[in-house]
């Protein structure tokens, strides 16, 4: 990872609630209304979601059942991401599915909450739930050890990316 522009507000904490989930928390120096707008208005989303790459907000229907689709451009290539909104409660919660064109069918459910922890300070918590093949196949027993190793694997990667 390269520079970290938001360092001053980068009080993120990470967790692995289960081997199918990743949790990321971050406190921003901004009122909850602003954070909500930055996440739900297409012209604002286009300014940050692409991680510095050009982003086309193809669709952004912020309502239950609504469709979203973004295309990120980099080095002459394009990556498409899309999903549906399952729950929208302004300005405090969005639950949406997330799929990358490169791994069709690998659907992640992102559950995001926005809390005003102090006036003008907002905590964003994202819990990403993965649908693993172990669960689908009912292989919980034999997958237990591998799942645990995987969790530590992810934790390692997470700690490295933070450090």
């Amino acid at each position, binding site marked *: *990872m390269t520079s*970290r*522009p*938001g360092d*001053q*507000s*980068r009080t*993120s904490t990470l967790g692995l609630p289960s081997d199918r989930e*990743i949790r*990321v928390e*971050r406190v*921003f*120096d*901004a009122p909850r209304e*602003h*954070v909500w*707008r*930055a*996440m739900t208005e297409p012209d*604002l989303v286009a*300014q*940050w*979601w*692409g*991680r*510095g790459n050009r982003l086309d907000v193809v669709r952004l229907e912020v309502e239950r059942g609504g469709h979203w689709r973004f295309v990120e451009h980099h080095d002459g*290539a394009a*990556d498409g991401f899309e999903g549906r909104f399952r729950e929208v409660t302004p300005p405090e919660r969005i639950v949406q599915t*997330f799929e990358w*064109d*490169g*791994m069709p069918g*690998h659907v*992640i459910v992102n559950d995001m909450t926005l809390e005003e922890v102090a006036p003008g300070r907002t905590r*964003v918590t*994202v819990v*990403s739930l*993965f649908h*693993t*093949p*172990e669960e689908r196949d009912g*292989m919980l027993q*034999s*997958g237990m*050890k*591998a799942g645990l*190793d*995987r969790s530590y*694997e*992810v934790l*390692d*990667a*997470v700690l*490295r*990316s*933070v450090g």
Partner: protein
Amino acid sequence: MVQYQSSAGEPAGAERLDADELDIIFAALSDPTRRGVLERLGRADASISELAAGFDMTLTGMRKHVRILERAGLIATEKVGRVRRCTLGPRRLDLETAWMNRHQQSLEARLDRLGAFLERTKGDPT
């Protein structure tokens, strides 16, 4: 395409991947032809010309895909006589693990950007 082991031995995702490796792997996986090639090689080894024929492509086009997959460690090639054989590996990729890592990194990067954006537009985000 997802591989995992349910019996004895190391779990498929035991190797460590750094961010650059993940980028190369996911770039390799972002193309439907290359994913098709991985599925095809999962059934049996094949030469580049067999792959090209199977995907209705030129040899040159298929060579390019093969090179990208090979660089990502997702396939290996070996010259046997005048024919280049392609096989899966050496990377025993656990896609779920790689995908979780990748998603985590992307999410972090996006929140970095969101923080910078909010900083820049303090007071009024429009």
